[in-house]
Each structure stands twice: as C-alpha cells, then as structure tokens.
C-alpha cells in the first residue's frame, strides 16, 4: 500500500514538474503577451494541481489534505483573476494605439 502511494507521489510530482517546465518554456519562447499568459496557466492549474495530488498521501491527516487542496484552490482563483486583469490591460493598450 505504502509503495503504491510512494509511486503515486513520484509520478504525480514528476508530471507536475513537467507542466511547470512546459509553462516556463512557453513564457520564454512565445511571441506575444497573450500567448505567454496562456502558457503560464499550464503551470498554475495543472502543474500545481498534480504536485498537490502527489503530496496528498504525505499530508498526514484530513486537515492537511484540506489545507493542500485549499492552497491549490486559492492559487487557481488568484492566477485566473490576475490573468484576466493582465489580458484586459493588454487589450485596452492594444486598442488605444
């Protein structure tokens, strides 16, 4: 049982790191601000989500699990809002010039 949980942790965190890597490559390589913003959501949503899933077996109790999920939810909420705000600012700037 614990070996299976360890395997889940390793696989999920590695997958999460892959999405962080992909998001960072996108941030560095994509040509325009909106695409770069789009690349970042991969890291925040999927990457962090997979890392949280990987850490769940090690959270030590239901309270720890809830805290980890709450952290993921708050980051999702904040990053989605900030992405909207930045995209809105880019659009306003683009339409004025």
């Amino acid at each position, binding site marked *: 049982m614990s070996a299976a949980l360890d395997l889940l942790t390793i696989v999920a965190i590695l997958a999460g790191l892959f999405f962080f890597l992909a998001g960072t490559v996108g941030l560095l390589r994509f040509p325009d601000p909106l695409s770069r913003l789009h690349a970042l959501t991969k890291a925040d949503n999927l990457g962090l989500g997979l890392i949280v899933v990987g850490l769940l077996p090690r959270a030590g109790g239901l309270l720890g699990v809830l805290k980890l999920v709450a952290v993921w939810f708050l980051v999702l909420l904040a990053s989605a809002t900030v992405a*909207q705000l930045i995209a809105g600012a880019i659009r306003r700037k683009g339409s004025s010039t």
Partner: protein
Amino acid sequence: MTVVNALDIGLAALVLALAAWTVAAREAFAAAVGYVAYGLLLSLVWVRLFAVDVALTEAAIGSGVTGVLLIRAAARLRGATPALDEPLAPPLRFLAGVLCAMVAGALAATVLLMPDPAPTLAPQAVGNLPSTGLGNAVTAVLISYRAFDTMLEKVVLVLAVVGVWSLAPDACWGGSPGAPRPARPEAALAFLAQVLPPLGIVVGIHIFWVGADEPGGAFQGGAILAAMWMITMMAGLTEAPPVSSTRLRLVLVSGPAVFLAIGLAGVVIAGGFLAYPSGSAKPLILFIEAFMTLTIAATLPMLVAGPPEQPPQP
C-alpha cells in the same frame, strides 16, 4: 553535498540575483514587481531557517503590503515629471557608492566575525514561557518580554496614517481617501473581491488565534484581514470611510490604547509598567492582540488608500 544543501545554495543565489536585478531595474514599476518576488523568495529563506513567524511576516508585510504601496506609488509617479532622472554629479555618485559599500562591508563583517556559537537568549526565552502561558516563544518575546517596543510599533503605525492624511488638500479634509468609486467595477476583480474575503477573514482570524501557541500572531493575521479590505476597495465594491469617521478613528487607535491601558493597569496590579499579573497573562495577551489585529487590519488599508482626495459629503 546533499540535495537539500544544493537547493539552499540555489535559493540564496536566486535571492541575491533578484536583489541585484531589482536595484538595477530602470523602471520604477519593474523594480517594485522585482521587490515583491524578492520578498516571497526571502520568506522561503526564513522557512529554511525554521523561522516560520518571520516568514509569514515577510510574505504578508514585507512582500505583500509594502509591494502594494510601492506599485501604487510607481503607478502614480508614472505621469509625473522625471525630476529625479537627472544623474547625480560624479563626485556625489562616487561618495554614495563608497557609503553603500561601507555599510554593506560593516554588516558583512558583523555577521562573519560573530563568535561560534552565536550569543543567544533563546534558552531564557523558552525557559520563561510557562510564566506567560503561551506556547509560541516569538509571541512571548513580542507581547511580554519586549512589550514596550511592540506597543511603540503600533503607535508608529497610527502616526504613519496621520502623516498620510496630513497630505490632504484643505478642500478634501474630512472626505474619503482615494479616488471615487468607478461606476462599473472590473468584472474579474469584483468576482475575486466577493469570493476571497469570506475565506481570508477566517484565515486571518485563525492565524491571529493560533499565534499564542504556533507560528502566527496579530501582525500576520491583521495583514491578511487588511488585504481583504484592500481588495474590496480596489475592486470598487466599497469605498474607504471618510477620515472624519469617529468609528474609523476609534478602530485605528484601539490597539495602542488598549495596550497602554493594560500597561498602566500593570503598574497598580502587577507592580510594573506593562507587567501582567501572574496567572492571567495569557488572556490579557490575547485581549491586547485582538485589538492590535483590529488596528493593523484598519491601518494598512488606510496607508494604501492614501490621503483624502474627495471633498466631504455634506
């Protein structure tokens, strides 16, 4: 070298590189953003040093609230005349560089020449914990061992608000701080400002409450509550109360006032200014901390909102 060691060295290098980048950034806004990221990395450093209380404060105050203040200042200065862009005269620049190098050198020498093991009061701080009834030595240091300093810090916060308010033009005195509410708030920000505060208020009060026994306390909890008020004001859902509001002023001074009143009562009851009677130290400390949390939660948004810019409503 273990993996953890390598990660620590990488973190330290990242902090230094980001600090250098922030100093070198030419644009005020970019420098402010760099400073926020620097503060968040620094709070990770504090976690690695097992100073979770400091890490929470660094993330909430050092990076969060200070970051908001700096970004707002940068945004406000963007249209202003760049009077400071003229380079200093070369001798003056050289002198400033020498002064900075001397300060940095003195700090480095102090740290490097410290005896090993460094002198510490930690055993005494932990040894006297039972007399305060607290479980968190940091809170005991702040509210009991060096209560006088903490009280004066709160007075300084209130003085800072007085300083900001005194920048108000005469016609606007008594009005609300900041720009008037927009007719249509930005949808995404308004959504966040409606979803986040119920969670943030619970987390803020929780962090204040567990501060007695675990990392946390009035400053960190108050900063989270302050952030919730700031976000509703920034989203345009609420307006800051007018600076003439008696209720606002009472909240602003309540923390230092309660602290001072209990401190003076200590002269009569416990035989010393800011001394707590034995046995009831913990309830008194939590009572003071509750009002301090309230003061911090009101002071920080008032600092961010700035001086009154609207004439008072009749």
